[in-house]
């Protein structure tokens, strides 16, 4: 055990820390696929999973956008509006960023 503590305290400790993080993260990455291959996907579960992409998006951006204030919300609205009309993702991104820069330049 004392040998292990010596190694961990040496520069090898960083390598161990990164390895540990990699293992845990990889487990998170594969766990969903492994779990679902052992679970019968009922219609109810399928409905829940179908709601996931939109739910992840809202859960990720809503707190950030509300914290950033109304200019951020206008930028998101602009990007969504351009995407809904043109369906060109790169253009929509540029429109969102452009709207935000213009508002911030004027404020």
């Amino acid at each position, binding site marked *: 055990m004392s040998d292990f503590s010596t190694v961990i*305290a040496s520069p090898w400790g960083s390598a161990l820390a990164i390895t540990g993080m990699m293992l*845990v*993260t990889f487990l998170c*990455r594969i766990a969903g696929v492994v779990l679902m291959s052992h679970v019968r996907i009922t219609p109810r579960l399928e409905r829940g999973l179908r709601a996931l992409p939109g739910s*992840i998006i809202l859960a990720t951006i809503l707190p950030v956008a509300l914290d950033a204030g109304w200019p951020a919300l206008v930028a998101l609205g602009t990007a969504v509006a351009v995407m809904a009309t043109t*369906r060109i993702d790169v253009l929509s991104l540029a429109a969102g960023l452009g709207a935000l820069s213009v508002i*911030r330049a004027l404020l």
Partner: protein
Amino acid sequence: MSSSPRPFLSLAGLRYGARAALPAFPGFIMFAAAFGTAAAQKGLSLAEAMGLSVFVYAGASQMVALEIWQKVWTPSTILTLMTVTAVVNSRMILLGATLQPWLRHEPAARSALNLFLLTEAGWLIGTRYHNEGGRDVGVLLGTGLILWVVWQVATVIGYFVGALVPQPRAFGLDMVMPIFFSIMLVPLWKGARPAIPWLVAGIVSFVTHALVPGYGYIVAGALAGVIAGMLIE
């Protein structure tokens, strides 16, 4: 479900995926460059910063790792780091769960690579393609590979150059990921009713964010959305 074509992998799919990943580039570049800069300021060696970007490859957990990074490690600090990483990255379990039907017949080694490269942005691009009826696993892999490369290059640049743009806020670049995410919402839209769980997810996430520090709000909101989806007929 059974009428959908069987998954396969093609070179054309890899190319399509790499191209489809383009709108995620600005967000990846900004985030990885910010991580590289923060890592350099925190005193990490280039090898340590790159080790995190190459092998962990998960932005939020890399940033959190910087908060608890040690000059001298002990078993307990490494365990803390691993626990925090698991909490921050637990949302990836959900992403993987939705990919299972697509990857079901794939060879395990290829799925392992595909999942090692799994990110929210790549998953959203892949999900959009899959929802449109595509089954080429190459698209998922192509997106994953190109985004991983972008992440590495931007980490190195951030480490040496510091901030890429002097005033990222002036160009709205602090919001580049949220804007990209909101764009990916549009092809998912199938009317107001299927979007009710999204609203639930947003509200739960916002409340969690206000009450609990850290990144737990994403997985809390996402889970609430899935549960709402299961409950609504």
